[in-house]
């Protein structure tokens, strides 16, 4: 009998340990300690030896920026040791999703601001002693900080303004060959389209070999579509942001303009899309005259295509009509795990990395991203290193946050993009596409 009891006890212990391993044993909350200086790291937050882990997705340019900041922070806080652990993008998503329920995630996590609403239950809110929402809104542009605010709670601080709207890579070599003025000065979209038509090239078999205006990547299509709706005075959110309104005259006018660009021969959406000739690749393969993509693609494209010999530049599109209002994702930023045993130091580092002007500037230059802080975006160093940011300074204040969608990736990549590209490819009509988008996007609220 006693033996049976022991065996039962052992089995139950193993079972309980198994459950607890998967249940995500939340660490005991630590008493918040007042952080040191506001992100300058001048005053060490703690004298005890502190070891922190920082998880980011793998991007050499981004990570070079993080390594510099970590080194600077550890110099100012000799008792703190921060280890940078990076994961390939898809693996990073999987790791977050498995580590967070188990409570095994790093102390500090790189997070795309727009994801915050999906992970909010597993993130530590920023203590007011570190930064209040009002302070954050004064420190950063509204679009990047907006994603880190969920139900009136601030969960992290942004590092970049993820601008997918309006920016285009332009191939000077092709502009010169076509006899078009470079850098382009487009009064309106029609002027841009005329240039695009001149840049388009076909091969002997009648297949498009160079797209004059490749705007058929998922980010470009989706964010240009949303901006078109806003610029025409419409909105894709209902009044209380509890549902979408995609089947509107403004949406229809925007999609019809896109179809007119295809009909004008600016791009063949069957040959140029996310699966084939993605703009981030095809531009650097000299297959595109004007390529619609965010500035983040520049560093990556140049690294991936070292033999790309064409002269190029970066330009900004005119609005469809009226002010160039647009919506943007909240880009990459930093958050802290509620399971960290050193949350105070982790927050101090986050503030040091994101809200300190010099550190933020260094990171944006290293990563080639648009600064989340207006002060940094307007700095001389940014103007010298990234002239396209200086050109966009007038545009950035027109940006607002995309809004907390139930699942942003689902709406953008599996609903908006597929139907927009199907319409451009002639598989769906404009009305069919908008009806499907409206129905499917609203179903994500269920």
């Amino acid at each position, binding site marked *: 009998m006693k033996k049976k009891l022991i065996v039962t006890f052992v089995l139950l212990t193993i079972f309980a340990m198994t459950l607890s391993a998967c249940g995500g044993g939340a660490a005991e909350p630590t008493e918040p300690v007042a952080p040191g200086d506001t992100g300058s790291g001048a005053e060490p937050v703690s004298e005890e030896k502190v070891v922190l882990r920082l998880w980011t997705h793998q991007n050499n340019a981004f990570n070079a920026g993080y390594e510099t900041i970590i080194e600077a922070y550890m110099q100012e806080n000799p008792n703190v040791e921060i280890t940078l652990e990076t994961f390939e993008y898809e693996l990073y998503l999987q790791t977050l*999703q498995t580590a967070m329920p188990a409570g095994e995630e790093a102390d500090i996590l790189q997070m795309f601001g727009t994801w915050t609403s999906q992970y909010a239950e597993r993130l530590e809110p920023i203590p007011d002693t570190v930064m209040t929402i009002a302070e954050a809104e004064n420190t950063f542009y509204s679009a990047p900080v907006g994603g880190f605010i969920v139900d009136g709670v601030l969960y992290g601080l942004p590092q970049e303004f993820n601008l997918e709207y309006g920016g285009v890579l332009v191939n000077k070599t092709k502009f010169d060959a076509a006899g078009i003025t470079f850098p382009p000065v487009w009064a309106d979209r029609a002027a841009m389209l005329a240039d695009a038509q001149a840049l388009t090239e076909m*091969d002997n078999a009648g297949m498009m070999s160079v797209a004059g205006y490749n705007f058929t990547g998922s980010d470009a299509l989706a964010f240009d579509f949303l901006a078109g709706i806003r610029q025409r005075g419409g909105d894709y959110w209902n009044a209380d942001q509890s549902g979408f309104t995609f089947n509107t005259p403004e949406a229809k006018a925007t999609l019809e303009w896109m179809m007119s660009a295809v009909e004008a021969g600016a791009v063949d959406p069957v040959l140029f899309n*996310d699966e084939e000739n993605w703009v981030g690749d095809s531009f650097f393969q000299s297959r595109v005259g004007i390529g619609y993509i965010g500035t983040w693609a520049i560093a990556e494209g140049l690294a991936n295509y070292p033999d790309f010999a064409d002269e190029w530049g970066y330009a900004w599109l005119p609005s469809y009509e009226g002010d160039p209002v647009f919506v943007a994702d909240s880009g990459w930023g930093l958050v802290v795990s509620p399971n960290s045993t050193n949350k105070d130091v982790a927050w101090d580092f986050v503030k040091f990395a994101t809200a300190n002007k010099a550190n933020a500037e260094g990171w944006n230059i290293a990563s080639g991203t648009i600064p989340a802080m207006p002060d940094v975006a307007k700095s001389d160093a940014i103007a010298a290193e990234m002239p396209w940011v200086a050109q966009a300074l007038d545009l950035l204040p027109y940006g607002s946050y995309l809004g907390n969608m139930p699942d942003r990736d689902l709406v953008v990549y*599996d609903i908006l993009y597929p139907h927009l590209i199907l319409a451009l490819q002639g598989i769906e009509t404009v009305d069919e596409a908008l009806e499907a988008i409206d129905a499917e996007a609203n179903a994500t609220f269920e």
Partner: protein
Amino acid sequence: MFKRNRVKSKNKGGGLRVGQRHFILSVTIPMILYEVIGIFALLWAFILIFFKYSPGRAGGPILGLGGSNPFVGLQHFQNMFTGASLEARQFRISLVNTLIFAFVVLVLNLAITLPLATLIESVKSRYKDLFRMIYFLPVLTASVGVAEMWTYLYDPQAGLINAILRALGGTPVAWLSDPRAEFFGISVSMLAVIIAYLWADYGYNLVIFIAALQSIPRELKEAAMIDGANPWQTFSKITIPLLQPTILFVCVMTMLSSFQVFDVVQVMTDGGPNHQTRVMVLDIYDNAFRFQRMGWSAAVSFVLFIIVMVVTVIQMRVLRTDWEY
């Protein structure tokens, strides 16, 4: 009393010899580890089937189940087959695509490997090894590498296949991205992926068939020829029936791997264009890791498991033999 003490005394010593204890420990520990790592993962996936679970939500106090990860019973299965939601429609598309993929791959694989194995078996023995090696080489190639290579071959502007078409005066095709292109009701993109998959996979079955052909007693064929059978009759009446156990094995293994195809599809098309190459494992992956619908994904995995099991059982029933040679 005395007897009882003796028993007690025996138990005190463990009742087992050192070797037996060592054996039990060396078996028990790996089994417990297997149970924790393997069985628990399966059990967890099975539990998730009944919940609308997302790892991003904290959920209830026990394993994160309940609360914001609510219990939904069999609702996932009901939605899969009758729902109008995007994920339900994508599931149904992926189910049809997976069935098309698996059956076309099976038919083409058998149509290529069996005659080719017979041909190779008929050549002089010094060339057999060479052919076997050549045909087996793609199997050794990493599937992602194969997918990348075929993606380049299919490239509409710079690909070799369109270059040949152009040289012959034909019209180039966007093999992997044109949602309008189809051939006998199957999308061209699906056929393009199937060809790439077949190229990488058929060498495996070929080697198995060659081995099976070599094991057929020569006397049986010679007897048939003496009785006046021509080569086709020998092949169809002697070789094929004797290959039946091998054909069963090849069919089961090919179907199993085809139902689980993922890497080639993800690299070449990522399910596009217009979901025409979206297969079930890709659907499972996307739902689990892109859209954090772990409960839904677990339910789709369960359906895939049932399909694979049913198809395997049917194949074993239809193709089984009660004899050996």
